[in-house]
């Protein structure tokens, strides 16, 4: 056995290790001997909270001392008793073993929770759909659970017939269901200057992807007879205290924007704008106005608070770029990623997400040597426009240090930039639109951490 593997094993079987001992999840060597000797009294508690960690960790030395894995040799309660009846939980929730994956705040990022952010735990998610309860949150004046029978949606401005719609009206109209990512313009914003946060949840977690259902804006705008000559801009306005307002270009609106009432097969969650929000594919999340109450058709941009005082990108010459809305092509490896530790040498599946506000993902390359050499990753289907694309690539970890990176290319041919390329053009004070290649450093003991490399 190599020195490294021995260390890893020790960390599993003894207390001192750095790799997390999932509480009460597995047995140490002494306990395994006891199992083999038939003493099982202490096992009940352990098995009540058991998981197959021993086997999963490949604790071969310990196994060799016993007749086999106690998780196999000793039948668990769930194999010997009666389980719970149907509809025990009228609305199901995740396994109790999954409670580590939660939306979380980054300490000190904002001062008050009602004008704050909670980040999506990307490090533990699969595929391309974000579970509704884990969708990231960003509110400016707190969230509400609005009575849908009283919610109204108005279209006015440069229209022949300014109209009011109830939710009943909207849900009668022709609908579309589309999968799109939503990313806050400030996602990865804490990382412009230096490494600031430890895990992908905090570097990239103002990001989610759902299947949204609702009515195309083109249908609604036609229904109101919008001015096709002068109507170049829309103002979208929320019904919450902040009355969130954002300018949308008419071109975007007619292309693929819609007012959504559903996400992932159920109605929107209150934190995500129940009962109505705007979906603006490819555009930063702040434009996806929640609790949407009004759209005004106009002939100039509106310079609202969140497009004049915030969501403006400060350049080195002191000029602020306004209306920088598109979320350019970006990707990140979610496993292995910062704050995680590999469980020993051998095969790993490097997996991550890629997305572009300008269309489909064409290709993702992965490097394990900090960007010197690259291999093309396998893209999972579906590959949809302005939607997450999941990528995978195999890797045999030999125990040495590595720096993992992913680099996405979208259908326009745009290549995700390096951090130093971004900084050369935009400096490091712009807060918004950091779509740099992310680096995860793996050290000799398998610990992964967030680094910036040159």
């Amino acid at each position, binding site marked *: 056995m190599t020195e490294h593997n021995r260390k890893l094993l020790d960390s599993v079987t003894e207390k001192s290790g750095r*790799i*997390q001992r*999932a509480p009460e*999840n597995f047995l140490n060597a002494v306990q395994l001997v006891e199992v083999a000797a038939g003493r099982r009294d202490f096992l009940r508690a352990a098995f009540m909270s058991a998981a197959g960690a021993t086997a*999963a960790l490949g604790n071969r030395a310990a196994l060799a001392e016993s007749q086999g894995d106690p998780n196999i040799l000793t039948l668990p309660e769930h194999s010997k008793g009666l389980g719970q009846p149907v509809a025990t939980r009228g609305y199901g929730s995740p396994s109790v073993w*999954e409670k580590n994956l939660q*939306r*979380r705040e*980054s*300490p000190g990022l904002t*001062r*008050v929770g*009602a*004008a704050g952010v909670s980040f999506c735990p990307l*490090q533990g998610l699969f595929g391309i759909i974000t579970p509704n309860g884990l969708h990231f949150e960003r509110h400016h004046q*707190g969230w509400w659970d609005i009575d849908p029978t009283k919610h109204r949606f108005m279209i*006015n401005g440069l*229209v*022949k*017939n300014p109209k*009011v719609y109830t939710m009943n009206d909207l849900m009668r109209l022709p609908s579309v269901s589309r999968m799109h990512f939503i990313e806050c313009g400030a996602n990865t914003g804490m990382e412009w200057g230096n490494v600031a*946060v*430890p895990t992908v949840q*905090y570097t990239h977690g103002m990001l989610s992807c759902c299947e949204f259902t609702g009515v195309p804006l083109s249908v609604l705008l*036609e*229904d109101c007879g919008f001015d096709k000559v002068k109507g170049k801009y829309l*103002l979208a*306005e929320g019904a919450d*205290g*902040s009355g969130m307002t954002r300018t949308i*270009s008419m071109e975007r609106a007619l292309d693929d924007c819609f007012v959504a009432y559903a996400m992932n097969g159920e109605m929107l969650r209150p934190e995500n704008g129940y009962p109505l929000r705007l979906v603006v594919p490819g555009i930063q999340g702040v434009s996806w106005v929640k609790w949407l*109450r009004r759209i005004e058709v106009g002939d*100039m941009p509106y*310079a*609202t*608070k969140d497009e*004049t005082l915030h969501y403006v990108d400060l350049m080195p010459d*002191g*000029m602020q*770029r*306004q*209306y920088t*809305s*598109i979320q*350019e092509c970006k990707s990140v490896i979610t*496993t292995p990623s910062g*704050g*995680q530790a590999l*469980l020993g040498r051998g095969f790993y599946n490097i997996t991550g997400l890629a997305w572009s506000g300008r269309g489909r993902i064409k290709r993702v*390359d992965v490097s394990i040597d*900090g960007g010197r050499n*690259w291999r093309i990753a396998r893209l999972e289907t579906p590959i949809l426009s302005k939607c997450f694309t999941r990528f995978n690539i195999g890797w045999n970890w030999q125990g040495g240090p590595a*720096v993992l990176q992913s680099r996405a290319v979208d259908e326009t041919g745009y290549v995700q*930039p390096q951090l130093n*390329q971004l900084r050369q*053009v935009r400096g490091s004070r712009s807060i918004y639109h950091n779509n740099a290649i992310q680096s995860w*450093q793996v050290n000799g003991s398998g610990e992964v*951490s967030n680094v910036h*490399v*040159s």
Partner: protein
Amino acid sequence: MSMFPDRVRCYEAAMAGTIICIGVMSAAFAQSIPLPYTGIGRTATPAEIKAWDIDVRPDFKGLPPGAGSVANGQQIWETKCESCHGTFGESNEVFTPITGGTTPEDRVTGHVEALMRSDFPQRTTLMKLTQLSTLWDYINRAMPWNAPKSLTVDEVYAVTAYILNLGDILPADFVLSDKNIREVQAMLPNRNGMLKFEPLWNIKGSGDVHNTLCMTDCKIDAKTISSLPDFARNAHGNLAEQNRLIGPVQGINTAEVFGDATPAKKAATKVVSTAPDASDLAKKYACVACHATRSKLIGPSYKDISAKYNGDVGASAKLAAKIRIGGAGTWGTTPMPAHAAISDEDLHALAQWSLSGGQ
């Protein structure tokens, strides 16, 4: 359009700012032009549009007539804004400062010099502000934060004028109105500090930063130029508790190495829970904007409140009433705002919770 003369007239009237088209839109008219989606939605009434169409554009379209003096604005500021934004708009307790960082020279150039300096610590509202309409519109729709849309039109003018006075942009005897707002726009220190950036607005743009598709032996230094300092390892809480128990990797036990003592840990590992307990209520009603458990923010700490009323049997009811109506005098001259919208049940829970020191 020529097919529907009535509608065109109606639309033009709306454009001129008067919404008189509704009378023209008789039911008979609507029926004579079958829309593709019949029976869905209805025409908005003028009163409805007036109630909701509150936005003010950069060209000040939508700005209601009115006026407010700096002096009046100061009074409003001190009673309704100061508690969160500080006496001079300088506070960063609740949000970034509103004032500071602008100079008389900036008012000449129209581009704030401090924005060009990478060493300047803050970006205040007045440093960034390019459109006065933005400030007016936002205060009108969203402030005070805990009672949005409660100011009258004249109050919005007044408090806007006062903020500009705090920034040395308007003199103390100024009265801001719809008549002179354009002249004031021309005085903003950063009025020339913004450009519409097409490459990130237009979907067909190709961006401003470009990388190439090098595949082998690419030129890199491979030097780590930044990593998380050891003391910050646990600043986001124990990462072992933020990863799945099973899988190819596990979360690193960051608490084990550096101990549980990191103060930030508690905050971070407190998950966003949905269980409504009093601390959630305090978040929900934004009490946390002004009160903390141990330290004085704008209002007293819960610990101090608990100590002050220790043994006072009537304290709970008294405090509930105080939270409801707000006011100053017990702890200082800064008033607590009124909280009209809290249910009695929540109010009681919050009073109890305050008395328990925020436990």
